[in-house]
């Protein structure tokens, strides 16, 4: 396939996944910061919750890499 289209596809895979992750992390981060301010012992749980949406962008990255590198 056209190399340009492949590159656009890879870009979309990373970019759209990043938007999703960003939206989710923004909300979680705001709520988490509030929770940790009141109960500092929740910091572990907070990190976990904050890191959960990151799977999306990482899978997006994996898809992009497969588009670009796997022939």
């Amino acid at each position, binding site marked *: 396939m056209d190399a340009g289209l492949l590159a656009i596809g890879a870009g979309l895979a990373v970019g759209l996944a990043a938007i999703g992750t960003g939206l989710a992390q923004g909300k979680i981060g705001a709520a988490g910061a509030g929770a940790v301010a009141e109960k500092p012992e929740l*910091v*572990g*749980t907070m*990190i*976990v919750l904050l*890191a*959960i949406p*990151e*799977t999306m962008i*990482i*899978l997006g*990255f*994996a898809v992009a*890499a*497969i588009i670009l*590198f*796997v022939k």
Partner: protein
Amino acid sequence: MLVKMTKIQIIGTRDVVDQTVKALHRAGVVQIEEKLPSVDPLALDDVAARQRDEMTLLVARLEALLALLPKRPPPGDMAARYDAEASRSTGDVLAETKNALAQLDAPAQNLARRRDELQADQVTLPRYATTMRQLMPLAADLEPLQHYETVALLVERKFAAVLEMFREELPGITNNQFEFVSRDIDKDTTAAIIVFSREHSAAVHNLIGRESISQVRLPEELTNVPFQEALKTIETRLASIPKELEKLNRELDALANEWHARLSVWGAVLRDRLQELEVRGRFGATAYTFVVGGWMPRQRVPELRALLAREVGDQILLEEVPVTEHDLEHAPVVMSNPGPAKPFEYLVRMMALPRYGTIDPTPIMAIFLPIFFGMILGDVGYGVIVLLGALYLARKAKPGGFRSLLIVILYCSIWSIAFGFLYGEFFGELGEKLFHMHPYFPRGQSVVALFIFSLAFGVVQISLGFALGIYQAAKLHQRHELLDRVAKVIALIGVFGLVAVSANYLPKELTTPSIGIVIVGTVLLMYTLGWIGILLGPIEILTTLGNILSYLRLAAIGLSSVYLALVANELAGVLGGGIVGIIVGALFHALNIALGILSPTIQSLRLHYVEFFGKFYEGGGTDFAPFKRENIM
């Protein structure tokens, strides 16, 4: 590892209560539980109750006094001093403490108060002095008059119209008995001084108050003194403060030198005695015997038994009580891991303390976490910098959470260096360019291989997690969890089979059996979850697969760090490689190192907390809080 705990019960005759409490306190290995509601409490006699009240008060006063005195490190012979004081009778220590407090309280409070006042003056007086110096040119024109009051005002230039208004209104208010001068003292302030007869004081202040203008207020004792004199007084006082402060501090130091150690020892002894009295509230009693129960590490039972026999004698009986599963759920938790794995306990605690009877993941985390970190960062140069930084900080840090974290980072950096050699990275590709480092596994070029490598870690750790989960569920007789995990493992085996077939590791004929295994697993999971399982079963299987795919982050985050390092070097190259280039490159590398500590730590932690712990971990344990002497060192 979680230490094996056992529930014990101690029964003895009432005449040995004192010795028993002391022995238990010294041993410091038993967490004393509330007595059973069906047993009568062991009441304190009047003397002891009075002593307890007196001690509570004295300890509070003593701590307040210690807070006033400058801090002193505990002397080397603290333990000996403690023993000497602890061997005396409570009454004697109480009396001596009370005497000392009576003698010290007033002078120490006095000194501290005067010190605080002087320090406050040191901050506020210069502010007065500045303002007064500004007003000086105005004040010089005014004769100090008796029966007259002087008010100084500072007005922002843009509000200067107010002053005109004053000039118009003052004659009416004061019957023309006033003097009003104003002058611009700097580019945005105008100063004014009003002198007026005391009988109109209220009216003038009313006027000033109405316009809410900031009046220059002097310390009370200076309000009725002429300006020049007041300024002079302030200046002399300011000059004398450092010397006075030094003198006060010397006196406080002298007090601390003489008393701090003694007071701390008394405080420790009294707090311990107080604990010994208060713990009796948890003892049960009959007419002639007492009974107390608690949790302790099973291993230390013989030791405690021997201690009780030696210090109390044979009028006491220590026995292990059979426990129900319900009891065990509430057993206190002590984590005990070999030295190198110990710092990782802090990370497990950050999630939650494991419940008693479940698996403590600390040792496994100690193995995997540094490897994951190393795999992500994977750079000899970064690794060495992180290693040195962590070493330096860990040597300075006090024992505690932060230090544990530094030691964890230390292990992580060693793996980073190891992976750095494997990837052939030294500040990115700089090593290859500068000293022809040979990459055994260039991760920038073999992305797919790196992905498979990461997924392999996922398969290993998730399988391990399931194995632990199944073992734990079987041990704790959790039928539901057991079935759930077995079902997921079966489905996973099927998926692995399919992957192996599609990668030509297994013959094509195994496709159908693999699909069959996936279906068996899924159906079993649906059955375990009940009706909702028809919907949730397949989703849960997909989530489990997602958990394995999540390990792709080991590759992905690592690659982003490679590219950042590449950018740093390229940018330095583009800028000509001169001094500017090196500085810019170094800045980028510094940023990459900062990210390179933070994000691999969080990502590896997350892989443990979410993906790995999710398969078996049960938090909600309570910390073991033994009845023991205060650590005074």
